[in-house]
Structures are given as structure tokens and as C-alpha cells.
């Protein structure tokens, strides 16, 4: 049976009140064989250095709080076993995000991008209650279901070269979620969302590196969503050229 092992965790530290720039600090941690990276970080905070700051919550890969770069790869630290690594493990804040402190990144930029795509059912005309429930077949649900699985962990943003180079880019998760609503039969906001998608930093900034889909812990496949969205957008754009604009939500 595997025993406790000592691993060196190299953690990026940054205190805006004290540090000019982020630095690295090494901790010797006695890891249990069933530990995840998050367990090691919690050990550091609880037993070694209470000044360490990191986000976490559910410990079961559904809340999306604990995303970090581990040995250069964006991971959910609550899901990532320590046994997958050697004696030295490097834990850094998610790439591509400004860092507030230690392993805690500034999420506000993501929230703004998410809001831009209007990730909710948009109706041109609300149905009357008397019309009864809106029915959706299993096949219609299946169309968008995969893209609805996003937990907003932002690992995809940390992996994306376009996020790194183009500050206005909506990013993988926001586009995948916008596309999820475009595919929903209850939604009538495709025209409005497609205009946002065509804007600066929209879907056509994506160059299909596919890194987002590779690192996504929920197999949302945002890269697939974005490429599908491009084709739908072009079709919408062409038909929009010949169609008269209607007032309100199209």
C-alpha cells in the first residue's frame, strides 16, 4: 500500500502590499496517496503558512472555483491527483488573468464577457401562461446540452492564445454559453447574439487552437461550439442581408 510521501510544492506568492512582483515559495508537504493538489494547498494553509490565499469550494469539480496552473497546465486542483506528479509540483495562478493575490485571480473580466453574450432565454414575444409549458424534445435538448455543462472555471481562458493576445476577445466559455442559448429552441435571441458575436473580439477572433477544449474538465468542447457558431453566424449574416429587420429582439 502506498505511503505518505514528501513532495515539494512550489507556489507562486504575491502580496500587493509587500511584493513588487510575484515570487515563488517552496513548501515541503507530506502528501497522502489519495490527495489532490487542493489537499496539499489546504495543508500548507492550515499547517505551514496561513498567509497563503487560494480559492476553492465544493471539492468535487462542480463549482469551478479552484482552477490554477499546475506544472504549466490549467487544472481544477480539487480533481487533480498528486500522484500524477513527481517530487516537485509547481502551482501558479491561472494564466491570462490579472492576479489579485497569491493564487487568486481577477475574475471580473470574465463576468463582463459572459454578460455581453446574454446567456439567458431571450424572447421576441413572451408566451401567455394559458399557452401552457413550452415543450422541448430530447433531441432538441441534446443539441445544446453539452454546452450547458460549463462550470465557469475559466481553465479554457488560461489555455487560450487568443485571450493572451487580444484583450477584447469574448473567450471560449462565454461564446460556448452564448451558442448554447442560440441552439435552445425556446430562445429567439439568435439575431441579437450573432451581432455581438460578429463584433470586435467576437467569435471570428478564435483561431481554433483547440486548447480550450483540451483542458475543459467538463468536456464542454468550447472550440467545437465556437466553430459551429461561426457557420451559423455566417448563415445568419447572409440571410440577414436579405431579411428586413424587425423591431425588438429578432
Amino acid at each position: 500500500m502506498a505511503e505518505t510521501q514528501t513532495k515539494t510544492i512550489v507556489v507562486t506568492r504575491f502580496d500587493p502590499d509587500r511584493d513588487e512582483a510575484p515570487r515563488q515559495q517552496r513548501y515541503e508537504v507530506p502528501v497522502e496517496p489519495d490527495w489532490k493538489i487542493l489537499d496539499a494547498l489546504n495543508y500548507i494553509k492550515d499547517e505551514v503558512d496561513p498567509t497563503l490565499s487560494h480559492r476553492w469550494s465544493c471539492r468535487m469539480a462542480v463549482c469551478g472555483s479552484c482552477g490554477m496552473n499546475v506544472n504549466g497546465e490549467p487544472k481544477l486542483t480539487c480533481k487533480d491527483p498528486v500522484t500524477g506528479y513527481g517530487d516537485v509540483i509547481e502551482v501558479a495562478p491561472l494564466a491570462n488573468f490579472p492576479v489579485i493575490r497569491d493564487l487568486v485571480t481577477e475574475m471580473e473580466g470574465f463576468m463582463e464577457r459572459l454578460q455581453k453574450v446574454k446567456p439567458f432565454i431571450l424572447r421576441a414575444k413572451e408566451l401567455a401562461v394559458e399557452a401552457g409549458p413550452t415543450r422541448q424534445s430530447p433531441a432538441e435538448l441534446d443539441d445544446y446540452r453539452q454546452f450547458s455543462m460549463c462550470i465557469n472555471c475559466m481553465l479554457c481562458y488560461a489555455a487560450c492564445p487568443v485571450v493572451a493576445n487580444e484583450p477584447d476577445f469574448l473567450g471560449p466559455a462565454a461564446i460556448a454559453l452564448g451558442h448554447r442559448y442560440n441552439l435552445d429552441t425556446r430562445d429567439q435571441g439568435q439575431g441579437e447574439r450573432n451581432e455581438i458575436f460578429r463584433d470586435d473580439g467576437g467569435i471570428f477572433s478564435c483561431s481554433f487552437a483547440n486548447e480550450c477544449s483540451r483542458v475543459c474538465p467538463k468536456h464542454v468542447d468550447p472550440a467545437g461550439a465556437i466553430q459551429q457558431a461561426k457557420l451559423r453566424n455566417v448563415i445568419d449574416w447572409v440571410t440577414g442581408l436579405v431579411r428586413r429587420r424587425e423591431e425588438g429582439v429578432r
Partner: protein
Amino acid sequence: MRRMLLVLEPVIWLLFSAGMMVGGLLLPAWALVMGVAGPLGIAPAATSYDHVYALASHPLGRLVLLAAIALPLWGGAHHLRHVWLDFGGLRSDGLVGTLCYGVALLGSLAAIVAVARL
């Protein structure tokens, strides 16, 4: 310039997608036969004016050649513009994009003339 490119983006993307497909399907064979086998003497017919002219001047041949020249130009232009962006070239994106697509446009127009005059 970047604003102009933004407006044209859906069309450019469509041409780029078609260009990748058509270019990827047709150009490897061309490169192998016309660029390697022919010049090395392995496929002498590929260097023969009469043989190639007969193929090219056929209506189907003209169409295939037009597609094989014009579409990959857009595919390549879009790729190169994005490689430039990948290496941090956002500030000059308007200029670089216009240059890349400009070459694609000129090449496409030249292709139309080239196959028409055969």
C-alpha cells in the same frame, strides 16, 4: 482598417474555410507531380505543354484550377494573419490583415483572368 476587416469577417471566414478544404485536397497532388515528379523526370507528361494545356483548357479543368488558385489564397491569408496575431501583432493587425487579404484578392482576380484566357 481593422474595422473594415471586421465588417468583412464572415465572408473572409467562409472563403478561408473553403480554401483550407480545397487547398488541402488539391495542392498536395499538384506540389508532388508538378513540383517534384515532373522536374525530376519521373512524370514527363506533367511538363508537357500539350498535355497540361489540354487538361487546363477543358471547362472542368478551368474551374478546378480557378478553385485551386483562388480559394487557398484566402485560406492561407487568414492563417498567416492569425499567426501574426498569435505572436503579439495585434497593433498592426489592420495593416497585416489588409496586406494578406489584398494578396488573396489580387491573386483571385488574376486567377479568373488566367483561366479565362487559356
